[in-house]
């Protein structure tokens, strides 16, 4: 780890100079503030979700209880976010590699800027673009897929005639998280020490082998960190999914190309909240709480992965 805390030598505490004390205090305070804010969000979620958690099953929208209501949402959230990440992460790493190692040096900066522009696109524009431009384009390929590859559950069909499918939502999400991941990973690649690149090349590595030996391991923790950012974004994206996806509750399916899709939690909240009342409203917040918990679990797993190889961190 790059951390270089002054571990207190033996038992006594190091006296800190005022500047250090203030700075340490303020930065610790910021961290704590975030925890407090998050605790606030958690308390808000729990108190607002509580009536739904305790309500009788028939009061929950759909009349079959909270689990039945939230499960499709959860499914939709996970499948869209995970598949979006499956598309976006390799692509982002490839793009970052292209910019740092393959593109001519003179234009690499400009190319980075171009990809950053994708991040400049607000989510509602992605929503509009997704439903008006991307969705219609996918109609023909989707029907081709269902005809020829229909045996794969993802392409079971029947294909949607408007293209507002899970597939399109996934692509839109992937495009949305792409610039964030690319930017962080690219920065890590740029920082890969020249020494290590030279070390690899000097033993006769090709460019790709150099990347595998020096750049990828060095950027590994950044790639995971960036993917976590992207995953969070994909899990929590609201408006774009709400606009693009044709969702109906009860549509638990791996089928990516039909009109019947499970909604995502965030989009569902945005869709239903304006007209939600009473227990319905609390149910939506409860689904938000579930998303919160899911993010928690996913991150725990990712952390565990990162920490496993902490000793081999690149900054040492």
């Amino acid at each position: 780890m790059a951390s270089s805390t002054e571990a207190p030598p033996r038992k006594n505490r190091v006296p800190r100079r005022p500047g250090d004390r203030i700075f340490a205090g303020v930065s610790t305070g910021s961290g704590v503030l975030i925890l407090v804010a998050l605790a606030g969000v958690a308390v808000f979620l729990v108190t607002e979700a509580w009536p739904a958690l305790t309500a009788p099953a028939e009061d929950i929208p759909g009349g079959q209880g909270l689990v039945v209501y939230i499960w499709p949402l959860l499914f939709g959230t996970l499948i869209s976010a995970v598949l979006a990440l499956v598309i976006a992460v390799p692509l982002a790493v490839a793009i970052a590699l292209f910019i740092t190692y393959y593109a001519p040096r003179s234009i690499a900066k400009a190319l980075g800027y171009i990809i950053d522009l994708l991040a400049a696109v607000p989510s509602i524009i992605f929503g509009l673009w997704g439903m008006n431009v991307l969705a219609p384009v996918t109609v023909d390929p989707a029907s081709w897929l269902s005809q020829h590859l229909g045996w794969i559950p993802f392409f079971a069909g029947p294909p949607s005639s408007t293209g507002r499918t899970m597939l399109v939502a996934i692509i839109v999400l992937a495009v949305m998280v792409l610039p964030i991941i690319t930017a962080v990973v690219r920065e890590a690649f740029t920082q890969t020490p020249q020494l290590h690149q030279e070390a690899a090349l000097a033993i006769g590595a090709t460019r790709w082998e150099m990347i595998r030996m020096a750049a990828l391991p060095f950027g590994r923790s950044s790639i995971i960190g960036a993917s976590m950012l992207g995953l969070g974004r994909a899990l929590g994206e609201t408006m774009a999914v709400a606009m693009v996806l044709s969702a109906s509750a009860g549509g638990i399916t791996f089928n990516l190309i039909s009109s019947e899709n499970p909604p995502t939690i965030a989009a569902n909240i945005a869709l239903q909240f304006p007209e939600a009342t009473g227990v319905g409203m609390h149910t939506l917040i409860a689904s938000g709480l579930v998303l919160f918990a899911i993010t928690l679990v996913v991150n725990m797993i990712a952390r565990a992965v990162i920490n496993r190889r902490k000793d081999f961190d690149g900054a040492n």
Partner: protein
Amino acid sequence: MSTSLTTPERDPDLHTPLGGVSLTAGQLPRGAAPGTLVAAAVAGLLLWLLAGWAVVPCALLAAASYVVIVYTWSRAVEGPRKATDRFVTALVSGAFLLALLPLVSVIVTVVSRGAARFDAEFFTNSMLGVTGEGGGIYHAMMGTLIITGLATLISVPIGMLTAIYLVEYGRGKLAKAITFFVDVMTGIPSIVAGLFAYALFVMMFGPGVRMGLAGAVALSVLMIPTVVRSTEEMLKLVPNELREASYALAVPKWRTILKVVLPTALAGIATGVTLAIARVIGETAPLLVTAGLTDGDNFDPTDGRMTTLSVFSYYEYQSPGLFAEASFDRAWGAALVLMIIVMLLNLVARVISKLFAPKTR
């Protein structure tokens, strides 16, 4: 020197060279790769224009055939390692081109539809007293700048300081908890952040509060994790050697962080912050419930409703009335302006990082 591609038997004592490939061994002729690319592209084009195939399969087929030909050719002539290298090169460049597709498509869409309202009135007027055609987004531009500006003012110091805490000070349970929960925070749906901020302000100001500041708080909840995470990643990349060099000069830790660590990581941090801003500047749902919507100017974030470009754009699109075209034009125009603002921010960040970036030459 033999041109054989197989590795000769290893000498047991390590003290003789292995030999191996000669310097000029099996090189693809110059221009082989570009030539193949052109050929594949032409073939694709012919299929499209003459055989009447759809564009997508043609492009895919051209790309795939290029990759396959170059790979097998190179494998035969140059050996598997070089072939893999070429394969990855094609893949990586292809990935970049692929990413350009949605970008170009989005930009073309937004520019072509948004350009209709690039007139003086659009940039100087508000929507007060406007129905049907005309009207402007001055109020929404100001609202966007004020609310996102405030959110940035809240998030960047908190986020950066937290990242600094995590990288430079953080040990033990607290740091673990913060790292962990910051990640969790990235998954909060924007609408939930909005409702949370609203609930918070209701506790302070009573029901029905609408103010820019509440919007900024909601956005901060969304923005902080991005700032923390990207800053943290960048700080981690600063070599410890530099910290040691500074400590050895009797520079206290906080000055070391401010004057050595941060400047070294600044370029990355600036990119991260712009990304964070870009992530929230287009939010609608959390702003509607916190900052509301108004036709006119309001530049006071502590009192009353404030419109932002994204909220404006969204509702112009959602509730266009009979003069739908005029409304849609405004919606796309506002979206275009929003994108331009983020691009400008991006440029500013680049300039900042250029000024402070590690000087390698």
